[in-house]
């Protein structure tokens, strides 16, 4: 339930809605919980369709790397 995945903002639409890229998947996300508002290119932590925090690029890439490694890890151990 509390899963949140780093996602990159690729476009900002009207009404505080952005298109974000989450590990290659594009979807809509609400920016209502962020003040100041992020910009295109920023990384955010996405939870149930809402950006809940802006991440530095370095931290976002680190988180994504851990995510991808977790997937590799599942393959390696055949989970």
């Amino acid at each position, binding site marked *: *339930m*509390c*899963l*949140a995945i780093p996602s990159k903002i690729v476009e900002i639409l009207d009404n505080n809605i952005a298109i974000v890229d989450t590990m290659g998947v594009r979807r809509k996300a*609400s920016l*209502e*919980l*962020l*003040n100041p508002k992020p910009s295109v290119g920023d990384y955010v*932590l996405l*939870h*149930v*369709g*809402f950006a*809940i*925090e802006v*991440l530095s690029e370095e*931290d*976002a890439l*680190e*988180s994504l*790397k*851990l*995510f991808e*490694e*977790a997937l*590799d*890890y*599942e393959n*390696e*151990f055949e*989970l």
Partner: protein
Amino acid sequence: MKTNLNSKEVILKAKNKIIQKIEKLGKPIKVMEFCGGHTHAIMRYGIDKLLKGYIEFIHGPGCPVCVASMDRIDLAIELAKIPNTIFTTYGDLLRVPGSYRKSLLDIRALGCDVRSLYSCLEAFDIALQNPNKNVVFFAIGFETTTPPTSVLLKKAKEHKLKNLFVVSNHVMTLPAIRYILNSGISHIDGIIGPGHVSVITGMKIYEEFDIPIVISGFEAFDILKAINMLLDQRIKGERKVENAYTRAVTEEGNKEAQKLIEETLDIREDFNWRGIGNLPKSALKINDDYEMFDAEKVFDVKLPASKEHPLCICPKVITGVSKPIDCKLFGNICTPENPIGSCMVSSEGACAAYYKYQEVELCM
């Protein structure tokens, strides 16, 4: 090439470090991971087996589906049965059996309009598209999931929607931690603090506790780092709040989200948690400014007396008193395909995590 932080080598190195520290302490320790997401990760990576004999994990109540009491599930089912209603909620809740062994999915099969949402704002769109129907959003979740409900309420008011109603079952982390620590039901040496709850609340909220707390992310590397920091505190005799998830968690948290919660929700006097029972001032209700959207005020639902399955030990699993394998139903009668209790439904529930990962043998 950079080191893979979740690799077997890194994990084994972290394990050795942890074991050295436990030997220095001279006794195994009990660590409670509050959040169900952490329970899932600990099982998924086999960290519990990796550190068996050194660290005992007490699984905390931080799984919103698990702690939803039977009377709340019964309320959801009765609301969904009201004619002309579109009932919406987050996915996991649909499979939790109510008092009479029927779940929301079961009543959907009988013709009720029950829908699962990814984002609660979908409920707003559904209400706009169906002006002749009442749309109910049954909101569950801890602090991470609360601010989106606040946004939904604000949007509903802004657009003067007359057919959208919300049930707030939002619960709070601190009263649950307080309960676990004060009730003495389980001795705990340190707490792995919730990662994404803390993104919203900030880490300063935990300062009242006189126990080592380390906020953690959700990968193997994050959890092992948090355990190492907890052990360092134990060795030095410290009891403070530390942050092992600096990628996302700050001291103050997300102030905009906190403001939205304050503007739309109030603290309930009482709220019933599965496994805990009534816990005063532990949950949030819709405030007077938004009461026209409060399904609990608008709909007069008569609930039959709720009852738990007599053999299900979810209430004890939620508070860390028992482990899933102590349950007679575990894995035979109660499975993720046919769950009897809520802890087997949500992937963050301890029973579901044990069931899925019981065969995981890592680095043994």
